């Protein structure tokens, strides 16, 4: 760890809290229907929308009606995304003439964006037309984020209402955050990103003349996930840069013509990147997401994009505190999230600053200095170095964002284990917008229940009695994603051919690739160990099912808990009530999250990153 690296991280934390407090207060006003500046401007638009929808904004729904509305809306969205991909060749706004998307990939992608996962079984710039990027994927970026937030709000109302049969109106809880939170923030962020160098245009592709024409090697078939190795077994001209191999002799004995041009894909990138960062979506415009210099051109753009990953999820803690009338409670949850995240940032930062063992016998200088970042630079960008990459890889997996600015597959074994474990914790350290906080609240219910068992009293949380029904639903929400992940990964390993064909690395690292794929999809994260070819039948289908199960089998029990809590009376705290704003509760909650995660995943991690670390450092 370098001093500037630690400095970057401290600055990050300070700015995050400084922005989170006012944003959290603002979001509380949005959700409680108070007038905001944005509402004075866009209020007529909001009312017009409700007239078009045919709903009355003050007509509230029971938790079941609310859940049905959310499910139907999401299902429709998924169907539309699927159909648009399957028809893109016949639709406008396809300047690069891309073909219709393969049905398996289209299914996987539709579920992926509908569930706020944004797992990408395709390379964006080479697969999806501008129309699909904007009208299908871009729209889901907004509404899947708004859906996540719209599931949190009834849960909060469940704690504050008494003897209530309704939990709110899904249509209002979908519309207000989209209009007043996500759109304004995205517009500001997108303009900033364009200023930094992110393209925003209706054009499709530019062609640049290369300064140094390259000897002819035909461009590789870059199927998503395909590994184009820079190394080949051909003898090479040792006086040259070693970027390309010589023309291969099996092309009919003639050299292919020299490469003199460089195609550069551009498009409406900034508008997409802004919302995918803010809405914890993470699906990049380009295949390599925010590692691409056009998606994330400068250290400053990187800092702001990285802030956007945690911004709304963190700020929602403050929103929660305000809405339940106990700011201390919100801060306790934010502190819990931070305690879960920080050790993993430190582990990855420390590990990635080590040189790769593969280079240890070579004459390589990997020492950090004023002139270079050093460390494990495979799969990392020079402008970002080690610290900014390590911070991003851990925040993007702590939150269910899943965009990357470095290739996690090329991380050291333990450096790459942090992202896996952070996702495996159930995306509750910040997590997805809305979904992170409702996930953590479900763990909080389990924590007060365990505390109640220890002292032999009926557990309470925020004045509501926690009883068998809440515990059943909470167990569902916690265990279903775990089951989806572990069963999916185990099945992939059993289907031997599937297992090995899709991998670019073998041995324990290959297992890590499989585990990562299911942990990521089964917790709606969406980042990847990119070496796995995820577009085949098995991974596209199994992954799609995992994402579906993980999203909706948490949403349903969460709304059920919300409905049940709203019906209960509020009991005033007594001397036997566990205070849930102090260090005791924070420690208990951190312990429950870590224990559930460790009990579920340590055996699997032992087969992947841990054994790989031991192989490399005997």
């Amino acid at each position: 760890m370098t001093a500037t690296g630690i400095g970057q991280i401290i600055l990050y934390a300070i700015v995050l809290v400084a922005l989170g407090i006012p944003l959290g207060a603002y979001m509380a006003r949005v959700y409680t229907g108070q007038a905001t500046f944005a509402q004075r401007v866009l209020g007529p638009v909001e009312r017009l929308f409700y007239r078009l929808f045919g709903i009355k904004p003050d007509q509230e729904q029971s938790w079941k009606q609310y859940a049905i509305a959310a499910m139907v809306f999401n299902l429709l969205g998924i169907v539309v995304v699927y159909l648009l991909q399957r028809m893109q060749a016949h639709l406008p706004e396809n300047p690069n003439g891309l073909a219709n998307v393969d049905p398996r990939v289209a299914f996987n992608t539709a579920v992926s964006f509908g569930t706020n996962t944004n797992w990408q079984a395709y390379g964006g710039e080479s697969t999806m037309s501008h129309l699909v990027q904007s009208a299908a994927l871009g729209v889901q970026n907004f509404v899947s984020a708004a859906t996540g937030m719209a599931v949190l709000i009834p849960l909060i109302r469940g704690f504050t209402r008494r003897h209530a049969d309704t939990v709110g109106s899904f249509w209002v809880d979908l519309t207000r955050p989209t209009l007043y939170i996500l759109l304004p923030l995205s517009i500001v962020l997108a303009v900033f990103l364009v200023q930094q160098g992110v393209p925003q245009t209706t054009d499709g592709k530019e062609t640049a003349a290369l300064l140094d024409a390259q000897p002819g090697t035909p461009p590789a078939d870059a199927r998503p996930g395909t590994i184009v190795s820079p190394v080949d077994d051909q003898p090479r001209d040792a006086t040259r840069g070693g970027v390309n191999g010589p023309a291969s002799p099996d092309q009919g004995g003639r050299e292919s013509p020299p490469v003199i041009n460089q195609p550069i894909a551009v498009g409406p990138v900034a508008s997409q990147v802004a919302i995918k960062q803010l809405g914890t979506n993470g699906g990049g415009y380009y295949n390599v997401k925010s590692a691409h210099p056009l998606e994330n051109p400068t250290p400053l753009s990187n800092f702001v994009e990285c802030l956007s990953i945690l911004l709304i999820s963190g700020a929602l803690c403050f929103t929660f505190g305000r809405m339940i009338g106990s700011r201390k409670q919100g801060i306790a949850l934010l502190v819990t999230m931070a305690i879960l995240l920080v050790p993993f940032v430190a582990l990855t930062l420390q590990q990635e600053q080590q040189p790769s063992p593969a280079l240890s016998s070579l004459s390589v200088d990997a020492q950090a200095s004023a002139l270079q970042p050093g460390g494990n630079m495979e799969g990392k960008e020079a402008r970002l170095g080690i610290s900014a990459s390590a911070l991003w890889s851990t925040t993007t997996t702590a939150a269910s964002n899943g965009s990357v600015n470095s290739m996690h597959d090329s991380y050291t074994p333990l450096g790459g284990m942090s992202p896996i474990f952070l996702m495996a914790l159930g995306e509750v350290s910040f997590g997805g917008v809305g979904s992170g906080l409702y996930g953590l609240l479900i763990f909080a219910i389990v924590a007060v229940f365990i505390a109640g068992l220890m002292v032999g009293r009926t557990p309470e949380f925020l004045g509501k009695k926690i009883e068998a029904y809440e515990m059943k639903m909470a167990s569902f929400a916690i265990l279903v994603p775990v089951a989806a992940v572990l069963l999916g990964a185990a099945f992939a390993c059993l289907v031997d051919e599937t297992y090995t064909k899709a991998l670019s690395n073998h041995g324990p690292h290959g297992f890590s690739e499989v585990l990562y794929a299911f942990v990521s999809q089964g917790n709606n994260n969406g980042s990847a160990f990119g070496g796995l070819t995820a577009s085949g039948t098995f991974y596209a289908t199994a992954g799609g099912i995992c994402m579906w199960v993980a999203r909706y089998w948490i949403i349903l029990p969460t709304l059920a808990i919300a409905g049940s809590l709203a019906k209960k009376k509020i009991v005033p705290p007594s001397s036997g009530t566990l205070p849930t704003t102090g260090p005791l509760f924070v420690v208990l909650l951190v312990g429950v999250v870590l224990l559930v995660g460790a009990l579920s995943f340590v055996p699997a991690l032992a087969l992947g990153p841990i054994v790989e670390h031991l192989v490399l450092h005997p």
Partner: protein
Amino acid sequence: MKETIRPALVSLAVFTVLCGFVYPLVMDGIAAVVFPHQATGSLIRDRDGHVVGSELIGQPFDNPAYFWSRLTAEANYDASNSTGTNLGPSGFVNDRGQLGPNQTLARSAKDRIDALRAADPTNTQPVPVDLVTSSASGLDPHISPAAAYYQVGRVARLRGQPADAVRKLVDDHLEGRTLGILGEPRVNVLLLNRALDDRFGPSKPNG
């Protein structure tokens, strides 16, 4: 069900128009007016107006009279097909299934080191690590200052220029950390090589 279907259909249509068309098109408009250069990819044009690169996208260099970029998984830095190598730290080291450090990584690094040594036998310093590893995007426009200074001797000799003049050019192209703390110091290889040609005349094709 009916009271759910209509709002679901209409709201999806409304948000598709708003977030899928109005929002990106308004951003297109703002970008085109306020930041026209960045909006189209920060393209560099020569005197005739031909596009000769992007300030933000790396290009491949294997002529030893140019500074070399980072290794890449994407042949010829094709910026319509970004990809990393995704090579993990470990792998099989022999066909008996014995595990160890990833040999593909080691081999590509060794090839690069051999190429650097062959082009400049007098330089026996250890090679800065970013010069022997592949970037995340495969399109990295930058190398570290250490990697640039490492190549100064070779470039100066092949261009028949004093090393100090070339080193001065590298100094002029150093980009520091933003606000003194964010990111890493770096050198944009394409801009540096274009400046080389401007200052010392174009290099013979393929050295």
